């Protein structure tokens, strides 16, 4: 593994940072937290011009055919600045499994619309319990000879309210069995989508399916193999989520470090007090450790190697570090950051979304335990 970015990745990183500070001002992000859409369509279209939605999609479908690592670099920058929107759900959670499990006709139908930014996608996997586990899947797709009829509920489906298409994980047998992934038009009859108000306004939705019809052509991959699709997409999407968290943690560390040098109490910068200094050092060590674990996982995926344990480690670490770094940052800032006007709150409000995306810490630790022979 290389501990440095390629020249091309460095350029992408610089360009992304530049774009985000220009197009996605702090004031704008604050508005979007309250916005009913939860994202800025103008910025979304400008991202299309830069080719980001299609970054890792094949050229044949209007993409740029870039490496997974490039997308990781981009996500890290998006996390640093906080770019709210359906990029993660569309690309990370839906386009990636489509590329791998989609039939040629499905890819031809859907990928160009993703690359051109015309379609937004949302993954519908969690249910009322909110737990990421195959045994929780009760939303059923019953076959009636002519096709499938979907009934049930999905919770915490991000940006479903603005999505054109849904990737819905259903059971085609008893609860938790015969899991099958369906590609469903979000505007279809029988689908009701409503917003779940959250602390960060990150477009969380509840979806209800009432007798929604689907055909076998709408199945992604094979019938009964839907959890394979979920597992595959989770590994990649998790690395992207971790990269986003990593960018956020770096931003929090940088702003806290700068504040500690600047803020004077008792006639000295508070950064000269050893307890503050050592807290900042612990934050740095945590963030650097996270960064290397994320890049290791990304690198393994990009090299086509087995990555499940490395991914679980990166996610467990991201969950721990993001929370720790934000709590310490609040403490070091004193009261000033405990205000709506301060940037730190954005990062803090997003902790729980990231933590419970596609598996919490206990889930990851269980996976690591399996990986070390327990």
């Amino acid at each position: 593994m290389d501990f440095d970015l390629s020249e091309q990745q460095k350029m992408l990183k610089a360009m992304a940072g530049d774009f985000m500070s220009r197009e996605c001002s702090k004031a704008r992000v604050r508005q979007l937290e309250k916005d009913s859409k939860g994202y800025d369509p103008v910025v979304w279209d400008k991202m299309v011009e830069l080719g980001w939605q299609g970054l890792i999609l094949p050229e044949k479908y209007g993409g740029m055919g870039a490496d997974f690592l490039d997308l990781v670099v981009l996500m890290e920058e998006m996390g640093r600045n906080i770019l709210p929107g359906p990029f993660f759900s569309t690309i990370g959670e839906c386009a990636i499994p489509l590329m791998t499990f989609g039939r040629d006709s499905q890819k031809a139908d859907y990928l160009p619309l993703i690359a051109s930014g015309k379609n937004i996608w949302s993954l519908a996997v969690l249910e009322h319990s909110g737990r990421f586990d195959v045994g929780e899947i009760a939303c059923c797709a019953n076959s009636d000879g002519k096709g499938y009829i979907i009934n049930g509920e999905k919770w915490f489906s991000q940006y479903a309210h603005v999505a054109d298409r849904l990737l819905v994980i259903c059971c085609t047998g008893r609860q938790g069995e015969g899991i099958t992934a369906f590609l469903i038009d979000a505007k279809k009859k029988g689908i009701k989508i409503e917003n779940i108000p959250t602390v960060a306004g990150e477009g969380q939705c509840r979806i209800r399916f009432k007798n929604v019809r689907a055909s076998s052509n709408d199945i992604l991959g094979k019938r009964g193999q839907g959890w394979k699709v979920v597992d595959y997409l989770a590994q990649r999407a998790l690395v992207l989520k971790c990269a986003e968290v990593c960018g956020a943690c770096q931003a929090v560390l940088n702003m806290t470090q700068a504040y500690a040098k600047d803020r004077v109490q008792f006639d000295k910068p508070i950064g000269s007090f050893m307890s503050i200094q050592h807290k900042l050092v612990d934050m740095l060590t945590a963030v650097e450790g996270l960064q290397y674990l994320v890049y290791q996982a990304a690198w393994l995926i990009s090299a086509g190697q087995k990555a499940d344990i490395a991914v679980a480690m990166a996610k467990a670490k991201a969950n721990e570090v993001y929370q720790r770094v934000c709590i310490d940052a609040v403490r070091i800032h004193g009261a000033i950051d405990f205000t709506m006007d301060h940037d730190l709150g954005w990062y803090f409000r997003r902790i729980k979304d990231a933590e419970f995306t596609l598996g919490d810490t206990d889930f990851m630790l269980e996976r690591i335990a399996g990986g070390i022979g327990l």
Partner: protein
Amino acid sequence: MDEASYWDIPGMTMGVSGVGWVGQSLMLFGSEEQKKKYIPLIASGEPDGVWCTAYSEPNAGSDFANIQTRAVRTDSEYILNGQKIWTSCAHRARWCWLAARTDTNVAKKQHGISLLILDMKSPGITIKPIENFAGVHIFNELFFDNVKVPVANLVGIENRGWYHLMQSLAFERHSMAPQFYGGARRIHEYLVKYVRDNRYKGKPMSEDSIIRHKLAERALELETLKMFAYEITWKISKGIIPVYEAARNKAYCDLVMERLAITGTEILGIYSQVDALSKWARLMGIITRMYMMFPGNSIAAGTDEIQKNIVGQFKLGLPRPY
């Protein structure tokens, strides 16, 4: 370092064999004669290639530059007087890598220090063993009574020893992450095997979710340590000089050892107090020994506070608090 430590090769840890920093330092700033004489001995792995390192004194621990041991130069030799403490392995070493004061008339206490090679067979050296609270004899007090050191044993430039010592300390700290990673990895493997082989409440301990999660957390910390070890090695191999990384790694090593030792004793339960050499010791006593030693060992090569001061100042650019 990683593999040697994984297999617990004697003499590799604490740098006593000279592999950790003496050899590398001599290659960088030793004289030709010194390289010819000492490097083959270090490479041979023979007792004549074993070194100890004498920096610390009663009043110079973290504040290393405070050393008082005097080396007064005559025509052909230095006359050494004073005391060192905590000198690991002095009772086994053939040579000593020694910091002494060669000039007292200086503006800053970092000036006037020189780095010397001391032949441990020289007359006038008294070695007094110190037993640590685990009952193990690792370190010693050293007393020097007019010990003669040939001028040819000066390493680098006289009175500029501080800068050579900083380089030597950097070698020492760079090697810590790979070394601790190897050793800790082995112990973690032992613990995994132990919980698979032992039963509690009618099932293998490895099925207990609390134990599973503790060992998974320890594995995650080990993986992080591995990344730090590889990062610093990668940087050095690319010719990038690490600035704060070794200090970060040292502090992280101590955290990893502490958590692993505590988890280990929790898994062994009440047996974790059984003497390491007893026939009833579990896992050959390695967990007990690790637990008895980790807090004390974490002091060696610079305390947690000192490492964090270094990172705070050199990486984060924070004002020096003292």
